[in-house]
């Protein structure tokens, strides 16, 4: 295959132009408007696709969150729970009340301001 030089041939161009005629002038404004109108929807679609969506990132984390939830549930089921303590007897209740009363009798003078500074320090050290 030979590759002759690519130079324009003005005579042939003119002859062809004479034979084929020049392209007519369309209504440019109408053609432009027509293209713009038909391009409106595809352009809008592209704008929507290009817009960043905040929930898209959160959605990508959903599988991770689900996996973490399942793992947490499995761990909580696998961990042995302490047995329920036995219910308090009447004697136990009385003992607790006595302890609370005794402690309150120590603290009452402090709260009311009756106790001296030394007593306050003593009480603080004892506690």
């Amino acid at each position, binding site marked *: *295959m*030979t*590759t*002759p*030089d*690519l130079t*324009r*041939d*003005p*005579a*042939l*161009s*003119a*002859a*062809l*132009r*004479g*034979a*084929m*005629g*020049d*392209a*007519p002038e*369309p209504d*440019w404004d109408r*053609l*432009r408007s*027509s*293209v*713009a109108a*038909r*391009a*409106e929807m*595809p*352009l*809008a*679609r*592209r*704008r*929507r*696709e*290009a817009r960043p969506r905040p929930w898209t990132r959160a959605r990508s984390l959903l599988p991770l969150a689900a996996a973490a939830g399942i793992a947490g549930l499995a761990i909580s089921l696998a961990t042995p729970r302490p047995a329920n303590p036995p219910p308090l007897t009447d004697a136990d209740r009385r003992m607790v009340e006595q302890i609370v009363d005794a402690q309150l009798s120590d603290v009452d003078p402090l709260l009311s301001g009756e106790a001296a500074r030394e007593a306050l320090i003593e009480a603080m050290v004892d506690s």
Partner: protein
Amino acid sequence: MPANTFSLVARAPAPPAPSTAPPEDEPALAERVRQGDAAAFDILVNRYMRRAFAVAYRLMGQKEDAEDLVQDAFLTVLQRIDTFEAGRPFSPWFFRILVNRGLNSRKARSLRTVEAIPETAAAGGPSPERSAERMELRDRLAAAMETLPERQRVIVQLFELEGFGGPEIAEILEISDGTVRWHLHEARKTLRRALAPYERS
């Protein structure tokens, strides 16, 4: 071949200047179009519409079909803009779309390639004898164009009539520069044979 070989044909206006280097803003414009920027799309449409219509008219032969093809090509640009490589010139990519779609439309519709031949050569009031001779020449040349293989015809139209350069045509048709030269050489041989009886001695 001397420049005045086909002096029977009136000189038509010069074809558009060969395309220049692609404007530097086109990669940015293409990126904006990709994001759906209507203003960027309008700039590209305005920049290429005239030339697109001229090429479309050569391919389709009818004004209405050429208008449809131009619209179709610009919409295809929107569909395929993601495939446009930012580092490449926009023009050959766009005209490849236009030419391919035009050729497909032609095949589908089995259109005539040439409209009624305009009387552009009749200016100056030549004698009836010379007018008849011009008509004959035009018919002969149009018929010779029709006998060319499709690729050769498109190359002649892009090169001789629309002012595209060889490398640009090669990129549009996705063939080598050498193949463009060869097709153009062959097409010219055919056309010159058709015009031989009209050559001045």
